């Protein structure tokens, strides 16, 4: 199934490996930061309402 990349295997595989890693890291970081911000805002809004 794996294509024969010949003498350029290192170049092609490192391009795919690093790019996919960067994209996955970007998506994960985005989601983690988003969830953290959402939770923080809910907590602050709740506290503000309780304090009147």
């Amino acid at each position, binding site marked *: 199934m794996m294509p024969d*990349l010949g*003498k350029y295997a290192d170049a*092609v595989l490192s*391009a795919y490996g*690093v790019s996919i890693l960067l994209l996955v890291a970007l*998506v994960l970081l985005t989601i983690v930061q988003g969830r953290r911000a959402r939770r923080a805002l809910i907590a602050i809004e709740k506290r*503000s309402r309780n304090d009147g």
Partner: protein
Amino acid sequence: MSMSNETAAPKRPSGFWSYANPVKFLGLTERVLPALWLLSGLSLVVGLIWGFFFTPDDFRQGSTVKIIYLHVPSALMAINAWFMMLVASLIWLIRRHHVSVLAAKAAAPVGVAMTLIALFTGAVWGQPMWGTWWAWDPRLTSFLILFLFYLGYMALWAAIEDPDTAADLTSVLCLVGSVFAVLSRYAVNFWNQGLHQGASLSLDKEENVADVFYFPLLVCIAGFVLLFFALVLYRTGTEIRLRRARALLAREARA
């Protein structure tokens, strides 16, 4: 001449401008994001698998041609992300819509990642084809400067405490950096020197890569574009929430 005593009700923005309202913008993102995540993931998986496993080697470049499915879409998005930031920054400078400048802020890390992918894949592609990882070629150099502008833009946001001042200054920086975004795209046309070739894709069909590489490349480009929009919409939502949280905390501190 009589003057009317009636006071006109403030006109509510409609259409596109109504999304300058953060609540309305968040409502829109909640509705469209699931489809955007799904479509971008699907396009990327299909495009990259198609390109990596089911396309032949190029007669001159061998298997390195497979790098095109990452290099071209990421370079395209790196440049267009800056143009999106430029439009959003101009909207901030002219109309003072917070959501627009927060969208520009949200797009910068995505643009950095795209630029980094384009630079890295370009280097590992260039080494076997040109015999060097890097050359001070007009397009490569303007691309590197664009990368530095992205970093500078993010650093400026982080360095200034007052959000409106930060928005003003980063918007001006974005205007200046646009020169290098344009150069990254058109340097090859301006100066007929350097190693980097012209456009891989063009409306002029004669300049395009062969069909066998072209169609999976289009799917990958669609994947990168959709991923960019998904990430920017999600990150803009995060910026809006952080801004609201900061405002509430400031109100608490004053009380």
